[in-house]
């Protein structure tokens, strides 16, 4: 049974460094048969990066559409407020007067025809 020595680590590092320098590291590890898997993994990484960029683009669109919705809500609340202002009795009177209308406040109670 082979016994390990501290110096073996040094040899291992030296061999690995030499293999890396020669560009043979993966071959030395004998993972050539997994080459397709390594390529696949890299493809997945690339896909993740691409999807992340797409998500980012979508999120940016969401933000811009949120801003548009906020803008529309502002316009809506502004218009609702302006509309409410015009329903005030005195305001209606003033508008009718400015339009030269003969219509005024009711002076008799309403009649309901059954």
């Amino acid at each position, binding site marked *: 049974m082979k016994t390990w020595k501290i110096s073996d680590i040094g040899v291992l590092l030296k061999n690995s460094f030499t293999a890396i320098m020669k560009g043979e590291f993966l071959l030395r590890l004998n993972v050539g048969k997994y080459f397709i898997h390594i390529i696949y993994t890299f493809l997945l990484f690339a896909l993740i990066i691409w999807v992340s960029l797409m998500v980012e*683009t979508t999120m*940016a669109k969401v933000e811009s559409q949120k801003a548009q919705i906020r803008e529309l809500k502002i*316009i809506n609340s*502004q218009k609702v407020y302006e509309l409410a202002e015009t329903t*005030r009795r005195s305001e209606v009177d003033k508008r009718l007067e400015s339009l030269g209308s003969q219509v005024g406040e009711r002076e008799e109670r*309403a009649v309901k025809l059954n």
Partner: protein
Amino acid sequence: MEAGKTNKPKKRDRIGVILYVFYVFMLLMSIVLIGGIVYIQLFFRPDKAIVEALTPNDQIRKIDPVRGNIYDCNGKLLAISCPSYQFYMDCTVLKDRNKPEEEEAWLDKAKELSKALADELKDKSADQYYKSIVEGRNKGNKYLRLTRKVDYDTRNRIVEFPLFREGRFKSGMIEVRTDVRQYPYGELARRTIGFVRDNSSDVANTHIGLEGKFDYILHGTQGREYLRRTDRGRVVNSDSVRVQAVDGKDLHTTLNIDYQEIADKALREQIENEEDLEGSCMVIMETATGAIRAMVNLVRDPKSGKWGEYQNVAIGRKAEPGSVFKTVTLMSVLNDGYITSLEQTLPATDGKVEGTSIRDEHIPQFARQHSTNRISVLDGFKISSNYVFAKLAVDNYGKKGGTDGTERFLANIYNYKLGDAFDFDLDGLQTPTIPNPGTRYWTNTDLGTMGYGYSTEETPLHILTFYNAIANKGKMMKPYLVEGPSILNSAVCTKAVADTLTRALKAVTEEGTARRLKDAKCSVAGKTGTSFGTFSNGQYFDAQGRRKYQGTFVGFFPADNPQYSIICMVYSYPTKKSFQGGGIPARAIRTVIDKVYDIDPCFREEIGGKRKKNK
């Protein structure tokens, strides 16, 4: 492997060498990168200023909830949050980088901007605007307030003005947006609706009106989300926690803003030219439910002298109610069976009530005019005689033969909910003051004066709630603005007693102190009341003989089939003028009743089937 080894030198091809060099280069770069990462993670300590400058300062975005709207009973909008915009200016923009001719061009554009602002806002001249910009530029002002708060449409026009349209980096334009609470009906019911500047303002210590009391419903819950910076700007970081903002809920009130405006206008018409008046209020309540349809509180601003909704008088001011309290005494003696008919009479001679210092000078006058020495309870009620009601209280609840009915009288008052502050939809309802015979302040006269509305202090809302119970045939409804109808006391009196009281109250408006209401569009039952406020000397008049008046009218209409109860109260500064309950309050109420009668669907005339008549 060793066996196949030859001594022939290895021939390297050119492409292989290039690839190898490229490989080595990439390898070295990766080593540098990994080394850099290790260094940055473990050893690098950047300058704090650089960290601050490069770290995004708003990683967390607060999501403000939208404050709920407030509506009246017909769905009309009473309060809404709208954004408002204010423009500031960094006057130093490009100042150091501009060449002289560029600076001149910038100032020319600033002049055009000033003109456009003056034309749009009409609050300052173009010269004033320009002067402030130039001064700001000379002094290095980076945050000059340029405009007042403007609405969305105006904002859109302003950002297109000369200079501003070039963007903030060239013009120095700074735009600040805040959500401001808007009230489409302005001052109407302002004290009842309440006031908040915007949803982010804390209203915890200013529980004014419905905005304050129901802030926990209207406010909503703030949310938050984390943002990350990307090439396309900041986007929500989907890996982080996101707390959704919950918008505030809308509040539907019982107020009818049309009635509020009618009441407000009617009251203003009456008080506008009365310089001696200090404050007033008017409340309209639906008889069957206790729903408050209008609550006007007009108080004079001591500085400007203008009337405005500065204080909720209807619930927050208690004072001696005066003769409107006589109805309480009358209900008490009718309930307890001390009198069985309004035609029952009392002696009408000198107007003195035995055992007290009370003396009513109107009684001898009444006796002379009617050639009689007796006065009926109904006549006493119609002319609002203090003597009659003091005597009713003292004779029936005073000490006699070793028994004392005072406690019973007081118990009746508490039973009519005139002694406690009930739970109301607005904060600040005052607790009435009812004297206690057990204290040293109690005098023999107190029972008699209570009989006609002194020695006690009540708010207008308490008085109205009591009269509404009479209109409702004894069922006392709790006044409410939001929460829904509830009963305070299911029977403060029997239906027969309520009918008797209604007859007495009708007599007041037909032949008594409130004759102004006789010709109203529908019949009215009610009571006037006038009381005097006390001065620091303990008297009801000051050294110049001036009095502080409180005039009240309270009642309900139509008298025979009551739909609404109403109270109007005015009070004065010390004055020599007289402000009686039958004066300003009755006139204001008459106007309101006539207008409400014309527009309220419950008063409409039906033709073709059964003809409905409310008059």
